[in-house]
């Protein structure tokens, strides 16, 4: 399991490849990998968004992410998990969140990915502030999907 916060842009697919080769070596044990990548859009609620500030609660954020992944690991027996979340200043097209789950069979990976994503969105202490053409706006609430 690797859970990390990053204050610089990262390539989610390079992260997956690196993690996978470090963890698994010659592999052959997992049959399924499910991945979710959340990316910054240049629009939200009808407005052009120039960039994003992602505030978090150092200490609690990591703790909540760990708790969420541990909880999912107890419910679905997956083999490995990689969760990376950005903090700080983010530009459009940059990756905000990466969730990758490795399991023997497909349903554990798919279910756990979705569950971790929803739990993260509703429980992990992150807050988005958008820079619009006129001023700033705190995102008040996550969309339901």
């Amino acid at each position, binding site marked *: 399991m690797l859970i990390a916060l990053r204050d610089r842009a990262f390539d989610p697919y390079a992260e997956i490849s690196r993690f996978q080769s470090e963890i698994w070596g010659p592999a052959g044990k997992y049959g399924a990998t499910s991945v979710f990548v959340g990316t910054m859009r240049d629009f939200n609620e009808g407005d052009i968004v120039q960039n994003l500030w992602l*505030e978090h609660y150092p200490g609690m954020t990591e703790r909540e992410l760990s708790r969420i992944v541990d909880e999912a690991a107890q419910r679905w027996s997956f083999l490995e998990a990689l969760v990376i979340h950005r903090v700080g200043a983010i530009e459009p097209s940059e990756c905000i969140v990466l969730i990758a789950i490795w399991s023997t069979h497909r349903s554990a990976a798919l279910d756990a990915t979705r569950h971790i994503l929803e739990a993260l*969105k509703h*429980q992990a202490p*992150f*807050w988005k502030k958008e820079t619009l053409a006129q001023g700033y706006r*705190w995102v008040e609430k996550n969309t339901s999907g």
Partner: protein
Amino acid sequence: MSIRVRYFASLREKMGRTEELISPEDLATVDDLWRAVNEGHPLPENLLCAINMEYADAGTAVHDGDEVAFFPPVTGG
């Protein structure tokens, strides 16, 4: 007692401060604490609270030395 109170995101901006150390005489719950720093107003329903980095409710007990954080709904991911 001594309590460290922290604010995040839009609430931080609204409060005009990131954190404060308060030393109330008598205080039992999160809601009491909120009232102490907000002129007696009750904790708004749409605010979240954590004690020592774990989610808590308006009625959760606050103890000497706790770090209590208040923040709006989270919007990560």
